[in-house]
């Protein structure tokens, strides 16, 4: 049986970037994907790049419009993407009545042109096919339709089996996403804190009447048994948007959340009155604390496999690229018999930049907000206090920082006008395990995750 230098499991953004790095480095690489068509997307995905106006995982994503390349300037790599891109000029959180907490105003940010964008909307199917082409050009063997069901580790390698095939390699890069089976099988999940699920339904839509068609929108439904969320992501095609409904609580029926926004709430129903659904998607994923050490016996976790729900596409690309290079360096080091430094470079990056550099609790706070301010009227009231826009932002970690400063600034007003809200706000500084306690209980794991 062929022994590969590296097996990459999962052909999303992380796995593709990892395989491109190892393939270009001359490592005998096989890329395994469960789906029968890598470039077809049926999971819900907002399809935006976080963040266009701020550092994210210590890097700045760059889109070269003329050259049609997406680049990461700090790490120093780029790839071809020849699909359409649309600038997202702001992110605005809407309350049930339509009061806004705006991370930027498009009329202001657009004065800076392309540089004013907070995020970039793109077409993920095109992105995947562009990356897949570069992967194939790098000599990588790509096998679709392989559902990896088991792994075996020995002294100098890793074997995986699934869909009646098996593969052996010196290293394995697990890029099988947020519900990674490899992370579970290899025991990476044992030390992680389980918070909840994130369930979603997505709709590609046309004919929406939005307050602006180049902003990212989120809103909260307080009428269901637990909070439901709506996100609207611009799409890089005229008149289209991706609309997603999400919840952290499996008791919530997402079709009720959809009806709330599309039909029942008069403010939002206006947006949807002439809309048309083009396509649907869904997702269900675990929300864990991050894996602190992404390396175990020649298995490296890349992308969402070891993250708190998601690294976003940009974080997945950086970590996949880094993991691929680390394995290439390690294989080379092994060949010439010198101290292996490659893998530790990746582990150090993961720990310094992701685990310690970006607090995962801040990430979760983005979703936990309605668990703190748990009434629609209270949320209307707080959003109504935003007289000035918050800094333009499309970055879940940065947003929480800006939100914290905003809350500080309005505390004197709340104390005066609505002292009853004060005890709720104190909850913001509690650990997320406490804030989401009830939800965690409601989320009986649907698969043994340890």
């Amino acid at each position, binding site marked *: 049986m062929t022994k590969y230098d590296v097996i990459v499991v999962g052909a999303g953004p992380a796995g593709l970037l990892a395989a491109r790095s190892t393939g*270009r480095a001359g490592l005998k690489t096989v890329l395994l994907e469960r789906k029968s068509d890598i470039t077809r997307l049926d999971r819900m995905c907002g399809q935006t790049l976080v963040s266009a106006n701020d550092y994210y995982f210590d890097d700045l994503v*760059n889109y070269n419009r*003329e050259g049609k390349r997406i*680049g990461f300037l*700090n790490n*120093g790599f780029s790839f071809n993407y020849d699909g359409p891109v649309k600038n997202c000029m702001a992110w605005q959180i809407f309350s049930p009545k339509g009061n806004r907490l705006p991370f930027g105003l498009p009329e202001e940010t657009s004065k800076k042109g392309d540089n004013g964008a907070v995020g970039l909307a793109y077409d993920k199917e095109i992105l995947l096919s562009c990356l897949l082409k570069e992967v194939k050009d790098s000599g990588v063997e790509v096998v679709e339709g392989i559902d990896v069901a088991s792994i075996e580790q020995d002294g100098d390698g890793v074997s995986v089996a699934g869909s009646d095939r098996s593969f052996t390699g010196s290293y394995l890069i697990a890029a099988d996403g947020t519900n990674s089976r490899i992370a579970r099988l290899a025991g990476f999940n044992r030390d992680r804190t389980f918070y909840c699920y994130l369930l979603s339904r997505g709709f590609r839509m046309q004919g929406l009447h939005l307050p602006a068609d180049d902003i990212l929108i989120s809103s909260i439904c307080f009428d269901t048994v637990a909070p439901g969320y709506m996100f609207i992501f611009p799409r890089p095609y005229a008149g289209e948007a991706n609309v997603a409904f999400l919840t952290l609580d499996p008791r919530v029926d997402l079709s009720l959340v959809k009806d709330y926004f599309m039909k029942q709430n008069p403010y939002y129903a206006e947006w949807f009155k002439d809309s048309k659904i083009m396509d649907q998607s869904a997702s269900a994923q675990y929300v864990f604390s991050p894996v602190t050490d992404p390396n175990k016996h020649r298995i490296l976790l890349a992308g969402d496999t070891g993250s708190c729900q998601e690294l976003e596409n940009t974080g997945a690309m950086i970590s996949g690229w880094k993991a691929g290079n*680390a394995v*290439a*360096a390690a294989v*080379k080091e092994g060949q010439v018999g010198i101290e292996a430094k490659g893998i530790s470079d990746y582990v150090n990056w993961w720990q310094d930049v992701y685990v310690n550099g970006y607090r995962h609790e801040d990430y979760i706070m983005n979703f936990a907000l309605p668990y703190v301010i748990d009434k629609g009227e209270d949320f209307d009231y707080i959003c109504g206090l935003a007289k000035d826009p918050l800094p333009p932002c499309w970055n879940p970690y940065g947003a929480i920082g800006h939100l914290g400063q905003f809350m500080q600034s309005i505390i004197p007003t709340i104390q005066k006008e609505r002292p009853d809200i004060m005890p709720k706000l104190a909850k913001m500084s509690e650990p997320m395990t406490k804030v989401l306690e009830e939800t965690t209980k409601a989320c009986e794991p649907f698969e043994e995750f340890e």
Partner: protein
Amino acid sequence: MSEQYDVVIVGAGPAGLMAAKVAGENGLKVALLERKESITSIQRSCATMFAIEDESYFGERMYFNEEQKRLVFPVTGFSIPYEGPYRNFYTWNVYTSDGKHSIKLGDYDANQAKGSKGRLSVTYSKQELLKGLLSDARANGVNVFTGMNVVGLKRDNGINTVITAEGRKFSGTFTIAADGINSRLMKLLDLNKERIFYGTLQGAGYYMTGVDPEFPESINFPQLFHKASGYPVMIWVEPSPYGEDEYWVYAGGPTHPELNYKDELDRCINDSPFSGWFKNAEIVREHGHVANIWSPSPTPFKDNVLITGDAGWTVEAECTGSMMSGLKAAHAISEAIRDNQPNKEGVQNYISWWEKHFPGSMDYKEFLTVMTGGLAGEDATTYLHKLVDEILPCSLNPYNLFNNVNAAIMKKMPQIQKERPDIIAKLQALGGMPVEEQMKDIIRSGFSN
């Protein structure tokens, strides 16, 4: 009216072309200026080996991926296509001047038997490497100007303007100095005043066919001595990538008024213990070079000029270090412009990287041992080298090439003490001097720019 760019890159060697390609890929408006009319024609002597396949070099472990024909820099995390010809070589052999003995760095037969897995590295075609980078740069919208001899640099209102001998002006937010060993930009920035000058290296050579050295697929390295001055003369005979039967032959060393390296090379070929290698040899074409030896630049950044490759380093960063620094500088500039920080803070990423990987990981003084190695003179050098009869591990890293040789000689100290106490005294005297003192004559006969 001068033209306006995000970055003006001076010099289209490996560092400048790499920087241009990457800046272009990132969507910057780039001007690449080259003094020569043809970027891809190389007349300067260059050993064109890829350093380094076997160990860490500027923190990188670069290697050549034969299947996909890519040069891979896994630590920095990039690779570039190289479709040109190449030749494996397996050992490095340092010959005494009488031709009777060689120190063998690497086991020729054992390494050669392993094929490309056993090689030290490959010699490659610099023309082809530059051609590939240039076509990538052009495909990414880089504006290429050849025949541009940059003689001036001005900074006004945050804009750098470089001025050519013909008076053409190119303005940009940033400038990249990729103009090599004898960088004019370093001089214009007054940075050479802060560097220590260690003399001038010169060399001359031929591409030859019909050469027949003892170890054909090796770097054959006779160490001769100039009769009048006693200066060491390095001879290189290594496989040329341009033909199965072709060799790159070179003689070089420190400048001395009475020393003509072309004469030394001809002496080696026609009238030396090594003449037998050249009985049927024919000259295909000639090459030559002059290079000043400086301590590294105190900084890789001044007045929005980013210094890359050999421009700010001691003699040579090699292709490896040059391409890495070109790539890093271009990304840093893209980041600074994207971040609207067109200043030192904006490119801090490059400055920190350079400090860590250049002076932070390589001791330039080790490089000088290539020059000081023969200073004990012909008699002592020949005696000492003849003591080394074991096969030594080989490194392609010029910064520690002679470390293994010196360690092997150290093991023979008791014998030397007994047989040649005069040599011990000579070595001790040299060893007790700072390198500037050892190289005093070399420094005096050099000419700094």
